C-alpha cells in the first residue's frame, strides 16, 4: 500500500465519519461544520484522483460559499439546539428505511458495474480528463452542453420553488 493510498483511505474515512456526524448532530451549527470537514476529506480524495481542479472548486464553491450561506442563515435565525421530533407517524420510519435500502442497493449495483474503471492514484495511465480545466470545459460546453444547461435550469426551478413556498401568504 502506497502513502497516497493510505492518505486517500484516511480522507475517505474522514468524509464518511463527518457526513454521519452531520446527520446525527443536534446542534445545527456543528452539523454545518461537520459537513465542511467532510467536504475537505472529499477534496483530498479528488486531489489524489488527479483532479485538483475539481478539488479546488469543491472547497471554493461548497465549503467557501454555500456552507457559509447556511451558517449565515442559521445565525440570522439564531437556531438553538434541535429538539427531537416526536410527532412523526410510524409509516415515516418504514418508508424511510425502505428508501435507504433501495438507495444502498442502487449504490452497490453501480460500484459492481464500474468498479474496474475507478482510477486510483497508483494508476500509470493518463491523468483523467477531469484534472485538466481545459478538457473539462471542452466536455461541459460541447458533449454535455444539454445536461449542463438542464442542471442550471433545475437549480433555477429550485430557487423559484423555494421562493414561492417561503413567501408570506396574501391575506384576501
Amino acid at each position, binding site marked *: 500500500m502506497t502513502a497516497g493510498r493510505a492518505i486517500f483511505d484516511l480522507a475517505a474515512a474522514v468524509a464518511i465519519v463527518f457526513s454521519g456526524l452531520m446527520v446525527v448532530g443536534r446542534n445545527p*451549527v*456543528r452539523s454545518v*461544520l461537520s459537513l*465542511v470537514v467532510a467536504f475537505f476529506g472529499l477534496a483530498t480524495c479528488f486531489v489524489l484522483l488527479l483532479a*485538483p*481542479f475539481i*478539488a*479546488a*472548486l469543491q*472547497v*471554493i464553491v461548497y*465549503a*467557501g*460559499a454555500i456552507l*457559509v*450561506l447556511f*451558517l*449565515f442563515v442559521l*445565525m*440570522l435565525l*439564531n437556531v438553538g439546539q434541535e429538539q427531537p421530533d416526536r410527532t412523526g407517524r410510524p409509516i415515516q420510519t418504514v418508508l424511510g428505511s425502505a428508501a435507504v435500502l433501495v438507495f444502498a442497493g442502487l449504490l452497490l449495483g453501480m460500484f459492481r458495474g464500474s468498479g474496474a474503471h475507478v482510477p486510483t492514484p497508483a494508476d500509470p495511465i493518463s491523468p483523467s480528463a477531469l484534472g485538466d*480545466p481545459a478538457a473539462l470545459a471542452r466536455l461541459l460546453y460541447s458533449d454535455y452542453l444539454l445536461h449542463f444547461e438542464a442542471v442550471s435550469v433545475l437549480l433555477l426551478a429550485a430557487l423559484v420553488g423555494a421562493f414561492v413556498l417561503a413567501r408570506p401568504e396574501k391575506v384576501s
Partner: protein
Amino acid sequence: MGGSALTFLDWAIVVLRVALPVLVLPLFVVPLTWLERRGAAFIQDRPGPNRVGPLGLVQPIADMIKMFFKEAITPTSADRFLYLLAPAIAVFAALSTFAVVPYGATIHVDGREIPMLGADLSIGVLYIFAITSLSVYAIVLAGWASNSKFSLMGGIRSGAQIISYELAMTTAAAGVILASSSFRLSDVIAMQQGTWLGVIPRWNVIPQFFGFVVFFISAFAETNRLPFDLPEAEAELVAGYHTEYSAMRFGAFQMAEYVNVMVVSAITTTLYFGGWSLPGFHPQGALGALASLLVFMAKSFFFVCVFIWVRWTLPRFRYDQLMKIGWKALLPLALANLLWIGALEMWRMRA
C-alpha cells in the same frame, strides 16, 4: 524529483522554501503594527506612540509582552471548542495562503533549480481563493461561539460581506487567468515579462485596470479593513466578532489581520504588477535572486502602505451601501472587465 531519491539537502531546501515565509510573515507583523499606528498618527496630525525606544519602535514588543501575559478569559456560556478553534483558523488561513505566491526568481546553484516559492501548484490561483474563502469561518465562528450579541452581529455581517465580495474578487481575477491561460502563479508572472513599445511594462494592470480596481477594493473587504470593517465596527458593536476575546487569543486575530494585509498585497503584486520581475531586469545567481526578492517586497510594501493610508482616511460604509457597492458596482465592473479581456484574447489569437 520523479524517480531519483531525494537527498537530505533536497529535503532541507523544500522545508526551508515552505517554512521561510511562514516564519517570516509573523515577524513582519511587529514593525507593521508600528507602521500602522505611526501612520495613523501622521494622518491625524498627532505624535502617536513615541515613548518606548527611539521613535516608539519598541512599542510593538511591549504590546506583544502585554498580550502574552494578560489573563485569557473564556465566557462561561461560550461553545468552548469552537471558541478556541476560531483564532486558530484565522492564523492558519492567513499563513497558508502565501504557500503558492512566488517571492523571487528561480536560483540556479550547483546544478540545482530552486524556485523561490512554497509550491508551484497547477491550480495556484484557485488555491488562494479556496484558502481565503475559509478565513470567513474564523470570524463567523468567533461571532457565534462567543455567545454574545455583539459578536454574533459581527459574525453575521462578515458572512454576508465576504460572500458578496468574493464573487467580485474571483471574477476580477478570472481576467488574469484568462490572459495568462493558466492557474499557475509562475505562469502569471512569466506572462508579464517585457514591455510594450519599449517603455510600458507588460503588467496586467494596464489592460485590466478595472479588474485591478475591483480586485483591490474587494481585498479590503476580504481583510475586514476600513472602509469595510463592519464585522468589527467598534462604534456600534464594541469590537464585533472578537469582543469576547482577550490576551493572545485576541492577538491571534490581530496577527491574522496584518498577515492578511501583507498576503493580499503580495497577491495583488503578483497578479497585476509582475510579481518579483521588472522590465529589463534579468536576475542571475544568488545575488540576482536576492534582488528579485527585494523588488517583490518593495512592490508589496507599497500596497501595504495603501492599506494603512485608506484605513485612516475613509469612513466606514453603511451596511446597505456595502451591499450596493458589491453587487451593483463591483460585480458588473468585473464582468465587463472579463468580457473586454475575452475580446482582447480573441483578437490576439486571430492576429
